[in-house]
């Protein structure tokens, strides 16, 4: 990866791998993440996308150091140059919620039902900033206002069951940004919300990024959310990064057939009528097959069994992330890379001769 981006990165992940010990006498280990690297700069939104089960959430938990002891984590996770992989629990606790925080998918269950929202936000403030009860409540109300909750003076003393799902997710955001963290990891923060509420929560994320310069890792499988929010996109498949690009480049010219498949699988308005007009059966173009099991990380392209363009090379050698031949993206500082032997060109046709370019 390029070092100019790396030097300004606040979160720098290198060669992250996570495997879970299998049942004894069972099928062996599960390799959830394999050799993942990425950087996030202050004020930047990196979207991590992929199908369910491709390692997105495991990646976020690994970065936070929240995986259960049955997980083996390799590689490096550096926050402002400080290594977190292998750090002890005490050090991680002082980082979590203060320098790096996380928002979970389920706002309905992520708040403690017996504590007022003010207390739950205040808990983080009191823990990391040593505020007193009164100051914490005051600051909690300010944070509620920051995340766009009306009437914060009253809401701060309410219980989670008195709030709607969108409001609860805003409260979760308030908890997450209470201590101005350098990095915010949002694991599908809008998946459980309806669309109008989604937009509101994403706007809050955008505003926080601008106001506080927070680096945001946005984990999602919703490409609409990605287009709306992200600066760069990391596409994951079966635990590996398959494509990494600025958001405009990715949507304009997806290089990896998997990314192309994801984009094609998004329903479009008028798609049905257009298909009928052309005499085609109106159906979404899905990607055939399923995400493979993760018992092994084979030395080949993991997407090859589902790929229309796969050949002998794809099933015998593993492609690495590299900038494909052809036009450079719009941002030379953030190159467009894909892990594919036959990256698609602008027209969507697979390239022939990257074999020679490969080491």
């Amino acid at each position, binding site marked *: 990866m390029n070092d100019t981006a790396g030097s300004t990165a606040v979160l720098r992940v290198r060669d992250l791998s996570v495997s879970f010990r299998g049942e004894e006498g069972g099928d062996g280990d599960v390799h959830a993440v394999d050799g993942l690297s990425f950087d996030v700069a202050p004020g930047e939104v990196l979207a991590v996308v992929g199908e369910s089960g491709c390692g997105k959430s495991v990646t976020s938990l690994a970065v*936070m150091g*929240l995986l259960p*002891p049955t997980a083996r984590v390799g590689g490096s996770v550096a926050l402002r140059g400080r290594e977190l992989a292998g750090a002890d629990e005490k050090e991680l*606790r*002082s*980082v*979590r*919620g*203060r320098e790096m*925080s*996380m928002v*979970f998918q*389920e706002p309905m*269950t*992520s*708040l*403690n*039902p*017996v*504590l*007022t929202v*003010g*207390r739950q936000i205040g*808990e*983080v403030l009191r*823990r*990391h900033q040593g505020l007193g009860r009164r100051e914490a*409540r005051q600051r909690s109300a300010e944070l509620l206002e920051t995340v766009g909750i009306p*009437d914060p*003076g*009253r809401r*701060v*003393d*309410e219980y989670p069951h*008195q709030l709607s799902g969108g409001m609860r997710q805003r409260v*979760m955001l308030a*908890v*997450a940004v209470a201590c101005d963290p350098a990095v915010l990891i949002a694991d599908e923060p809008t998946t459980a919300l309806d669309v109008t509420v989604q937009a509101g929560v994403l706007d809050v994320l955008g505003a926080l990024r601008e106001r506080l310069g927070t680096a945001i890792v946005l984990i999602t499988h919703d490409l609409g959310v990605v287009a709306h929010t992200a600066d760069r996109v990391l596409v994951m498949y079966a635990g590996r990064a398959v494509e990494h690009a600025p958001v405009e480049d990715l949507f304009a010219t997806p290089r990896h057939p998997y990314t192309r498949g994801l984009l094609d699988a998004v329903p479009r308005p008028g798609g049905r009528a257009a298909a009928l007009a052309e005499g085609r059966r109106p159906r979404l173009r899905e990607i055939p097959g399923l995400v493979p099991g993760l018992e092994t990380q084979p030395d080949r392209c993991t997407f090859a069994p589902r790929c229309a363009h796969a050949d002998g090379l794809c099933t015998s050698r593993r492609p690495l992330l590299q900038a494909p031949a052809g036009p450079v993206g719009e941002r030379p500082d953030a190159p467009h890379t894909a892990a594919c032997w036959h990256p698609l060109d602008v027209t969507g046709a697979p390239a022939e001769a990257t074999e020679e370019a490969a080491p």
Partner: protein
Amino acid sequence: MSTDAVHSGTARGPAGPGGPEDIPGTAPGRRRPGLLRRLRRNRLAFTGAVIAALFVLAALAAPLISPYDPARADFGSALAPPGWSHWLGTDDLGRDQLSRVIHGARASMQVGVLAVALAFLAGVPLGLIAGYYERFADPLVSRITDTLLAFPFLVLAVGLAAVLGPSLLNATVAIGVSLVPQVIRVTRAETLRLKHLDYVGAAVASGGGDGVVLVRHILPNAASALLVQATVGVPTAIIGEALLSFLGLGVQPPDPSLGVMLSSAQPYIAAAPWTAVFPGLAIVVATLAFNLFGDGLRDVLDPRGATR
């Protein structure tokens, strides 16, 4: 823990620090109806609660409301049947049965409350630890719990009381210890359930240590289950006390206790049945009342109940 919730609950009132916009009644139907209200809708539970409360009051005010000194013998009116001067009759020594039942209730309540408190003091921390540190602490705590649970409750209590020696304090300790396994079981089960919930994960993700997670997030959410367990534990302890005193391992005779009364009534059951009937009735009514109250509380505190 639960007092935290109570504090913030009161802070929401009209006088709460919410500023001028905090006008009561602006959010109709937002609050759940009060606990008492919901309890009142459940007739059986409410009856149980009232009787249990009367029982507790009688125990507290025993010296004030007893018509006679429970220890004063009056051989002139021994084994008198129930009547105007002695509502529940007298026993073989002419002592007033009503006064003795009231004072007996005092001993029952004392054991009931203290034994349950003791069981919770020991059982709740152990249950939390066993449930939270599933890999390390649970095997040890759970095997000990299983071993204790292999003995029926009363057998365990009698055995322990016999070892400790006969006295009210020792009976309390014996009953308390015998209740511990059940408390551990309930606390552990709740902890196992709660620790996988999202808000516990969220607390860890925001830097919460084990202590914070256990005391602020798990314990308060287990409180309703524990409260129900406590109300069910009291009648168990009352029966335990009656049994131990009946066997001579608890309250020692001249002192009144429902168990002691039953024990000393044995020779006269045919001639003066009231000597056995009334203390027995007191045990049945008190136990039933607390159990009904506990069952009702379980229904009322269940969040899946009518409130959602």
